[in-house]
């Protein structure tokens, strides 16, 4: 797929990949060999009928392709962009054995964009007629898990209300993933699409505080918890509370959600220094690093305790970050942050690491190289070492069973320890992927529907 040049794109927030032209899409679709037993579908957490939608693309019927995808996936424009296809559908593609797999993600994205650009997807749906079977269901959180669950339940004829704690819907799609990876106009349209199915969305509603789950169960026959993993982890090292040290959540929230770079037109401030260090190796770290460049940082360092090969971030995003000029400081572990005498961070003291024996996850464990300690002068630090499940709902719901690390415990079909209450996405898995959250939302919708039938 064509991309905007690094020199040009790193100055703005517009998307980096340009998407397929219709000709490119047809050509790519024609490469698909239409397997009888398609492995790609098994690789997709929401089991999109991939060969079927690709077949109609090859025939030039893009609208039909869009409908096909939406049978199983309510948010294709988002998934086509942010799914790690290389670990899912595309990894299973039989063509990958001897060559390049079909670019399923790019095709999905193309179809969703085509539909959006040529027509109003909202008009193509109509509210489901309410039937005697329709039940009231509460969905907590409007991130990918909640949106998917709500959309699926609405299509099955239920009355769904989403409760969102923030003032804007979308969860991580809105506050976390930056505009240049996922334009917010697309997220808004997808939310509008879900609303067009009859789903009611209530923002500024923090469940646990405004209503407990117990109270919701008096008014709703089913509840789905999709409240995510938004609790930032810190390393608990000296200097982490200095000014200029942000959690990635705070940093990205200020930028993506509050448009802090438009200050003072937007009143939320942010201070992005000349030298920014981002700690971590996941997609969130890449996002924070690339955002920093776009907002004027002269040097951006990515501090990661393993090497580039072990980074959990998508390969594509690691390349994007590198092309744009992010400096990778691999095999480095921050030990402490020091201040400039005025409470502001001025340097990150790091331990040089090397790779040792494989650990439980099968990856080589990073071990310190004794006495090899080095300093990176910085004026901003972004800590992107991961998030834990949001503790608020579990804390305020005494009967909700959770793992020690905070994840809500569910059965195979998403049921929690409370009858009628289901959960999915990051509140169950810890920080995972958009598509796995959507898969959970979809599965829970099916189970809730069955339970209430």
């Amino acid at each position, binding site marked *: 797929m064509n991309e905007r040049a690094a020199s040009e794109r790193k100055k703005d927030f517009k998307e980096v990949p340009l998407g397929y032209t219709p000709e490119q899409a047809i050509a790519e679709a024609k490469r698909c060999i239409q397997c009888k037993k398609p492995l790609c579908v098994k690789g997709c957490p929401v089991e999109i009928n991939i060969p079927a939608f690709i077949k109609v693309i090859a025939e030039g019927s893009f609208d039909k392709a869009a409908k096909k995808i939406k049978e199983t996936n309510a948010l294709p424009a988002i998934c086509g962009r942010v799914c790690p296809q290389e670990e899912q559908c595309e990894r299973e593609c039989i063509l990958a054995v001897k060559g390049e797999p079909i670019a399923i993600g790019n095709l999905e994205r193309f179809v969703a964009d085509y539909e959006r650009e040529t027509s109003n997807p909202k008009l193509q749906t109509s509210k489901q007629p309410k039937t005697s079977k329709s039940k009231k269901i509460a969905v907590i959180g409007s991130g990918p898990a909640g949106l998917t669950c709500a959309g699926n339940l609405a299509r099955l004829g239920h009355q769904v209300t989403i409760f969102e*704690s*923030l*003032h804007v819907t979308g969860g991580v799609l809105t506050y976390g993933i930056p505009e240049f990876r996922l334009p917010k106009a697309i997220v808004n349209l997808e939310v509008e699409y879900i609303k067009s199915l009859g789903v009611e969305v209530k*923002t*500024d*509603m*923090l469940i646990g*505080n*405004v*209503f407990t789950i117990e109270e919701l169960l008096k008014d709703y026959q089913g509840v789905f918890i999709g409240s995510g993993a*938004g*609790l*930032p982890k*810190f390393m*608990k090292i000296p200097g*982490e*509370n*200095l*000014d*200029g040290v*942000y*959690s990635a*959540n*705070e940093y990205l*929230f*200020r930028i993506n959600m*509050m*448009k802090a770079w438009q*200050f*003072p*037109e*937007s*009143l*939320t*401030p942010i*201070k992005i220094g000349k030298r920014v260090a981002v700690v971590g190796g996941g997609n969130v770290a890449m996002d924070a690093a690339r955002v920093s460049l776009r907002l004027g940082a002269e040097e951006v360092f990515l501090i990661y305790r393993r090497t580039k090969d072990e980074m959990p971030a998508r390969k594509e995003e690691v390349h994007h970050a590198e092309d744009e000029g992010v400096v990778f400081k691999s095999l480095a572990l921050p030990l402490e942050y020091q201040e400039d005498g005025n*409470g*502001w961070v001025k340097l990150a003291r790091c331990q040089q690491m090397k790779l040792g024996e494989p650990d439980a996850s099968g990856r080589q464990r990073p071990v310190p190289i004794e006495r090899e300690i080095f300093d990176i002068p910085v004026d901003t630090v972004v800590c992107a070492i991961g*998030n834990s499940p*949001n*503790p*608020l709902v579990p804390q305020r719901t005494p009967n909700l069973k959770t793992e020690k690390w905070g994840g809500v415990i569910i059965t195979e079909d998403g049921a929690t320890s409370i009858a009628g209450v289901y959960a999915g996405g990051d509140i169950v898995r810890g920080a995972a992927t958009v598509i796995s959250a959507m898969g959970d939302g979809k599965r829970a919708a099916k189970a809730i529907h069955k339970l209430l039938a």
Partner: protein
Amino acid sequence: MPKILKKEKLAENISRIIVDAPHIARVAKPGNFIVIIPTANAERIPLTIADADVEKGTISIIFQVVGGTTRLLDSLKVGDEIPHLLGPLGTPSHIEKFGTVVVIGGGVGIAEIYPVVKALKAVGNKVITIIGARCENLLIYKKELGEQSTKLRVTTDDGSCGRQGFVSDELKDIIAAEKVDLVIAVGPVPMMRVCCEVTRPHKIKTVVSLNPIMLDATGMCGVCRVTVGGQTKFACVEGPEFDGHEVDFADLVARLKPYKDMEKKALDHVCKLVEKLRG
């Protein structure tokens, strides 16, 4: 959207609005706060719930105009709708029968102690309330607190009302005169800090309500992190009230200042905007 039902000016730059928000009023407890976004481009700012009326479904919010967002909030009139109001947030004040409780409010913190004083009194505590401000016309809620407290003490920096001096001077005298079981202090950081130093040698438990910078205020960003007893805590969820003898005030003061310069710029920007709107 929550509508402003009533608005009053309590003092120079301090206003009270009564807002229609039955879902918040229903569950609001003393010590809880809200996050408000008064206009589309404003910040999310935290403000204490100064009172809640379950029957009427309303909450009172008292705020001081100190920056761009509070200035925008103050430009709203009765009948206006507030685009975003989230609450109740935070862990409520711990209310039980302690015995004699001294509750101290400084500046706009005076309004914040009102629901706490009311609740403490209702469960049978002897409540001695101390309020302090720079001068008499900044003393808000004097009458209301007088009605709710067992005793009310007033201090002003310039002596224009009550005792000339600080709330901490009054606190010292009370501690010298009688046995105090608990002290609660809400107000500017230096005031809370001094109150903690007064009570520390007497080993009187002292609760302070911290006011760090907040963003989402639901526990997902950590900007409000404070150091309490050597541990990092998120004030928006675990607080805002903490044991004052455990709080690292120097850390709090440092973390309150990073945007001071930008806050001034924001206020100037908003003032120009509001003037333009007025024509």
